[in-house]
């Protein structure tokens, strides 16, 4: 019977206050939806990466190398380290993207030239580090067939059955695409290389055909993944081992894999927490407002002897139903959104099995949202206990006598301080400002909501614009420039460099040409000398941002933050390094952030050396697109791209995913801000009816009453939005930096590269527009109805 009463009450209330309840419902649904989606994406990502790792068994430590190496030394190293469970040397042939084309039976064709990653042809491994197809099978293509990296499937719209053509020095070699592979090591766009799987026969043929550059990866599987770094230290202190390429540990592979989608999941959860906070603040306001509005009914219920618990139950029942419904709807919607948002995860990693956790994680998140909402409701509804029957019925007050007296005294104190005659401006504006001051406790809802919404809108967008800005390159340890050329796979790196540089220097369209050579120096580590890859060149005009110190001068070295941490040095310290046995002492001039090469790089001032492992050349031009195409055609072994393209491709996963988070936040933020403003004004106006009636009676026109409400809304909306924008622009960076630095990707301090017009002008204006629009909509009703109704009802 009691249950029925609660339900009936809930139903009646839902239909009577349809607008308020619908708005409240939308806000709750959006909060629940975002919370469930964020958690699901995170679960899917972790599941996807785990599942890929389970099947693919990536190495715990790997070292890349180009050129000759001592096989016996590797055998000895493995034998000397009992923690090595298994190891292998993977032979690879690298081809520049410009040498790869494809064709289809219907006559269409294309080139892979625009890809910036190195294309490594390999055969399938036997023991670990497997390359897998979509179903998780270890692929072993027969002769004449190739499995292409899954990233290329989307990027170049390749299909099974297409032909891939590799232009070798002894003619074109064609392979049929048999499928696409996922690569646990090189899945992320941050990875500089990607692998194609071919048969051993084709591999032998490609190796001897010429045009490619042979490379190896030495890979180790240890007893436990955490031993990867220790093994790396041991490896790097052994001088006989091959080491002129990148070295990567399991933790790094994992981090790079989880980086982009992980950031998005974090962004979504962060956004949903903001939204839930907004929803709770709003709920508190609505509930208190409802109690004040229905205080006479509550008084009657108490007068006829209903226990407080039963009255609380009436209200709680309604909110329980609403929250429950919101959680269910939000949860269901999140299933679809998660599907859409995790497409790239499923593709690049693995379709992790949907297990108990897939279901439990969002459900637990939703249950938490539910419990949070209900406990806040309970807390507020405890106020019903304090409502006194006489006060409620006679004065319509939710306060007991003591509180009424207290409030009256406070109002009187305030009223004594105000002076209408002393104010400036029109009377309605003076009244509005007095109102705002005396009812600040009510109106504060609007600035708080708009403050949080401004953060919700601006921070994800700032992250997106930062990660997609060409200036972001300075986080990647490279100076700002218009084009970048990489010489790595040329047969004669030095000769190519000479030709390229002289061609560029005689080209009037190019300026500020800077050449840097990569030199494998060594430095003392815990277990002897370790490799320190140093970019040597002229840094005097450098434009990269240094976190501490400055660019290196003669006899100085600058280190990436991760290297500085690893070597335990800071700006001003000295560091011993050696090259070909020749030791020297250099001073650390400063540190900078870098996300490339695992975040471990160094820069030294000096003559560009010959015989470097690879070269990077930067130049400025007004037409990077044309220059990169022209030079790319002319120098086949050189990868030359516009910097914008370089950043775009390298960070494409991150930026694509951030785009989703930024759009979701924008849309949800604006909807919620508009709804809450409307909700607030609706309740506020119904409570201010009498006040407006008095003002109308003594000679204020409706237009002036409307202007008052709009003015108050505009002032509070502006306040919140401006504060939120300023916070986002100043402390927001610190907040995001803190989040990023714990993720350990080599960025300790992120400086936003915002689109100022959009985020600091456009977004705030949109937000203010939405708030003001809601006020215009709600106040337009004030033109209707009789003044006496306002006074007497």
């Amino acid at each position, binding site marked *: 019977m009691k249950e029925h009463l609660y339900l009936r009450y809930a139903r009646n209330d839902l239909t009577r206050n349809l607008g308020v309840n619908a708005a409240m419902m939308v806000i709750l649904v959006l909060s629940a939806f975002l919370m469930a989606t964020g958690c699901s994406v995170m679960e899917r990502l972790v599941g996807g990466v785990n599942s890929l790792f389970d099947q693919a068994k990536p190495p715990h430590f790997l070292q890349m190398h180009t050129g000759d190496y001592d096989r016996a030394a590797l055998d000895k190293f493995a034998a000397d380290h009992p923690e090595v469970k298994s190891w292998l040397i993977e032979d690879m042939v690298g081809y520049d993207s410009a040498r790869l084309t494809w064709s289809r039976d219907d006559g269409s064709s294309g080139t892979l030239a625009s890809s910036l990653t190195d294309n490594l042809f390999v055969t399938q491994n036997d023991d670990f580090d497997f390359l897998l197809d979509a179903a998780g099978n270890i692929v072993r293509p027969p002769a004449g067939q190739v499995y292409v990296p899954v990233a290329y499937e989307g990027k170049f719209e390749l299909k099974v059955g297409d032909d891939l053509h590799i232009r070798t020095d002894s003619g074109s070699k064609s392979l049929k695409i048999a499928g696409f592979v996922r690569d646990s090591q090189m899945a992320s766009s941050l990875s500089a290389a990607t692998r194609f799987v071919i048969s051993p026969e084709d591999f032998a043929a490609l190796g001897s055909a010429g045009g490619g550059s042979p490379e190896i990866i030495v890979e180790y599987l240890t007893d436990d993944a955490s031993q990867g770094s220790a093994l790396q230290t041991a490896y790097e202190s052994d001088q006989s081992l091959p080491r002129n390429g990148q070295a990567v540990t399991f933790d790094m592979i994992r981090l790079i894999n989880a980086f982009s989608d992980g950031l998005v999941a974090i962004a979504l959860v962060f956004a949903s927490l903001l939204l839930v906070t907004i929803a709770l603040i709003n709920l508190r306001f609505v509930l208190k407002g409802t109690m004040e509005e229905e205080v006479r009914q509550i008084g009657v219920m108490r007068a006829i002897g209903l226990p407080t618990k039963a009255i609380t139950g009436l209200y709680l029942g309604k909110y329980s139903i609403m929250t429950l419904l919101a959680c269910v709807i939000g949860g269901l919607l999140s299933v679809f959104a998660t599907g859409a948002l995790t497409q790239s995860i499923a593709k690049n990693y693995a379709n992790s099995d949907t297990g108990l956790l897939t279901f439990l994680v969002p459900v637990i998140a939703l249950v938490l949202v539910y419990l949070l909402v209900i406990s806040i409701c309970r807390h507020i509804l405890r106020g019903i206990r304090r409502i006194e029957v006489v006060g409620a019925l006679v004065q319509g007050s939710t306060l007991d006598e003591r509180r009424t007296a207290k409030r*009256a*005294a406070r*109002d*009187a*104190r*305030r*009223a*004594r301080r*105000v*002076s*209408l*005659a002393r104010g400036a401006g*029109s*009377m309605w504006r003076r*009244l509005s400002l*007095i*109102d705002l*001051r*005396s*009812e600040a406790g009510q109106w504060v809802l609007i600035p708080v909501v708009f403050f949080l919404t401004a953060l919700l809108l601006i921070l994800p967008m700032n992250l997106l614009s930062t990660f997609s800005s060409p200036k972001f390159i300075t986080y990647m340890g490279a100076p700002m420039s218009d084009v970048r050329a990489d010489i790595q796979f040329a047969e004669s790196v030095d000769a190519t460099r000479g030709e390229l540089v002289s061609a560029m220097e005689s080209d009037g369209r190019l300026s500020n040409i800077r050449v840097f050579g990569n030199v494998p120096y060594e430095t003392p580590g815990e277990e002897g000398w370790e490799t320190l890859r140093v970019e040597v060149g002229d840094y005097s005009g450098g434009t990269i941002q240094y976190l501490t110190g400055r660019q290196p001068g003669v006899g100085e070295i600058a280190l990436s933050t991760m290297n500085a941490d690893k070597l335990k040095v800071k700006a001003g310290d000295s560091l011993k390094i050696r090259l070909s046995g020749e030791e020297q002492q250099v001073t650390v001039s400063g540190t900078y952030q870098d996300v490339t090469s695992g975040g471990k790089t160094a820069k030294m001032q000096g003559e560009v050396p010959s015989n470097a492992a690879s070269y990077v050349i930067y130049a400025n031009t007004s037409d990077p697109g044309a220059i990169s195409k022209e030079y790319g055609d002319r120098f086949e072994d050189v990868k030359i791209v516009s910097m914008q393209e370089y950043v775009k491709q390298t960070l494409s996963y991150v930026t694509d995913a951030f785009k989703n988070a930024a759009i979701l936040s924008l849309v949800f933020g604006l909807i919620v801000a508009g709804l809450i403003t409307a909700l607030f004004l609706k309740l506020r106006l119904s409570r201010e009816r*009498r*006040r407006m*009636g*008095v003002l*109308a*009676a*003594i*000679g*204020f*026109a*409706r*237009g*002036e009453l409307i202007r008052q409400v709009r003015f108050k809304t505009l002032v509070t909306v502006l306040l919140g939005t401006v504060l939120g924008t300023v916070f986002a622009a100043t402390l927001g960076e610190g907040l995001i930096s803190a989040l990023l630095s714990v993720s350990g990707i080599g960025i300790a301090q992120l400086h936003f590269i915002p689109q100022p017009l959009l985020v600091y002008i456009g977004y705030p204006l949109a937000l203010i527009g939405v708030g003001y629009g809601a006020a215009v909509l709600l106040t337009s009703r004030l*033109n209707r109805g*009789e*003044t*006496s109704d306002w*006074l007497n009802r």
Partner: protein
Amino acid sequence: MRNYMLECSGLTKTYLSTDPPTQVLHGIDLSVEEGEFLVIMGASGSGKSTLLYSISGMDRPTSGSVHLEGHDVTSLDDAAMSKVRLTRMGFVFQQAYFLSNLNIRDNVLLPALKANPKQSETVVSRVDALLDRFGIGHIKHHGITEVSGGQLQRASICRALAGEPAIVFADEPTGALNSSMTAEVMDALTGVHDDGRTIVMVTHDPACAARADRVVYLRDGLLVDSRSLGRWTRSAAVQREDDVLAWLRSLGF
């Protein structure tokens, strides 16, 4: 032809928000002379307050016309009507209806300051004089919760007078007061009338009605009778009250 302060003819008011629509006023013709104190009486639900709100431009009559000082005010738009209320009319309600975030003086000042924003010093000294005259000058800086109901209602009369209106409308100004406060307020209103101000008041207290020059009686939205009482004097007060009561009884009040 006589010059009326207020004149209405054929006034009807129908509320469309009810189902079926409720017609509250059925064609009222009423004139108020300049300087007259007119009281509208009638049983609950007879339409007295509706009549007051309709002739004062707070609500719009469904049909008929209202002329104030010879000008038709029924056709004015909201802004123009508001200006008329601000500059030519004063209101006293059953409850004081003050803004809780302003002190007594600012509440009284509000309409007058709004009407004369450039003469705030003149307005303030006029209001201070009014407050002193009605015996509440000493509480002018108080908040509205710190004073008695009678003081509040006197402040309400001050507010109605602050803009120096041509006519004052009062809707049951003593309805929420005890007898001694009622006398306070009625003395104040009588004083206003003595200054030559036109007053239209709704009440169902015969003692209050006895203060008027003329009383009209409303039943079911129609004016059914009227009685002229002449100028009120304190010495004849009891006699007038008895007369009014007897007249009202004859009308079934």
